[in-house]
């Protein structure tokens, strides 16, 4: 039985196959409408989420399957003190596959050790969020037609942003990808990621605090939100939250075919006036998230 806990669980070939499957689902949705008939997905969300949970649920419904689950810890037995392991042992009796979000890092790994059905990590605190990374990769492929030979800018909170860390790790598998890391000093990419991923794989990267000076080079601009929930100190959050706000003016020097991605939700880091720019693909990215999750569910349930 296979799980998806960390993007590193997937080989480059498996990522390619998932992207290919998602593209086929987009092209021929009718072929997939009954693929998961009589199968159930359990969405165990111990922490609130709009996109990820609804995306998993929509994915399962579009495959003809059904969904059970809860959307906050308060409405589960976790509120009575039940362990993660006991919760998934129980849910394994009812569902064919589990998608779990949990505020504690490593909870989905614990779940996968106890479950008798496949477990998908739908986000564990500031740690991993592999289906977001798959979503990002699918979006890049659909917008640029490739995952190699790209200059990718990451802007905002590069310290706590788990989507940034996972996407950097995933893109480091491909040839000639250059990273441009734009953040305030306090939210720079952690040194262990620079050392263990970028330097270990001899990737080209530059660090800067100035978005406008580097924007002309970028093929992809991946914007992120400064996340209030990752700060222990409200004062630091307030000081840093408005560091970068993307506006049409700042996009003036960017390539005409640059793609702007964002894992969402956004607060104010992308002005809504940018939404109508054809380079803004973050809502297409949301839709891609559903398709890649459909592909993933099919793979883990071993449905052809």
């Amino acid at each position, binding site marked *: 039985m296979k799980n998806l806990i960390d993007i590193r669980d997937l080989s480059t070939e498996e990522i390619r196959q998932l992207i290919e499957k998602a593209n086929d689902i987009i092209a021929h949705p009718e072929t997939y409408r009954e693929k998961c008939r009589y199968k159930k997905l359990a969405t165990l969300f111990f922490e609130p989420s709009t996109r990820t949970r609804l995306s998993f649920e929509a994915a399962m419904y579009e495959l003809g399957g059904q969904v059970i689950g809860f959307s906050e810890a308060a409405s589960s037995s976790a509120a009575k003190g039940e*362990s*993660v*392991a006991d919760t998934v042992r129980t849910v394994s009796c009812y569902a064919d596959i589990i998608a779990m979000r*949990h*505020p*504690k*890092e*490593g*909870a989905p*790994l*614990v779940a996968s050790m106890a479950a008798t059905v496949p477990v998908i990590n739908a986000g*564990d*605190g*500031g*740690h991993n969020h592999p289906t977001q990374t798959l979503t990002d990769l699918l979006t890049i492929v659909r917008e640029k037609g490739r995952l190699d030979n790209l200059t990718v800018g990451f802007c905002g909170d590069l310290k706590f942003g788990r989507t940034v860390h996972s996407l950097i790790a995933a893109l480091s598998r491909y040839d000639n990808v250059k990273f441009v890391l734009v953040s305030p000093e306090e939210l720079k990419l952690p040194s*262990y990621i620079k050392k*263990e991923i970028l330097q270990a794989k001899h990737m080209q990267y530059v660090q800067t605090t100035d978005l406008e000076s580097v924007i002309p080079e970028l093929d992809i601009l991946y914007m992120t939100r400064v996340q209030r929930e990752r700060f222990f100190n409200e004062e630091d959050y307030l000081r840093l939250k408005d560091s970068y706000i993307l506006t049409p003016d700042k996009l003036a020097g960017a390539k005409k075919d640059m793609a702007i991605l964002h894992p969402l939700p956004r607060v104010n880091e992308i002005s809504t006036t940018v939404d109508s720019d054809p380079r803004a693909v973050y809502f297409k990215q949301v839709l891609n998230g559903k398709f890649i999750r459909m592909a993933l569910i099919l793979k883990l349930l071993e449905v052809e």
Partner: protein
Amino acid sequence: MNIDSIQNGIVLDHIKAGKSMEIYNFLQLDKLSCSVAIIKNVNSRKMGKKDIIKIDTNLDVDLDVLGYIDPDITVNIIRGGALVEKKHLKLPAQVKGLLKCKNPRCITSVERELPHIFKLTNPSSRVYRCIYCEAKAE
């Protein structure tokens, strides 16, 4: 200084000088009723100074734990007064129950009876990370 040779047991040799008490405590040798000798600051050609521990019983030592504390230790197995096996340790790929994850965001901080497990992620700098949250062992 004379210390009786042991008949059936183990000798932990090439312990870094000064580390023997740490190993004595880790292996809980205070709970044994047999003879245990701690020999400190012995002259060594290879190491300059070293410590040695002799244990006069067939103790089942957790070599992974020992390897984590000091991968340069040699474990000599003695039977009938003679050396029958010499084991060279190495850094274990994984250690279970020896280290505690200190990351307050880690699932180990709340999940009951979950074993704390660390894996070796960088052998050259001896970095171990929690298998759940990937926090570095302190």
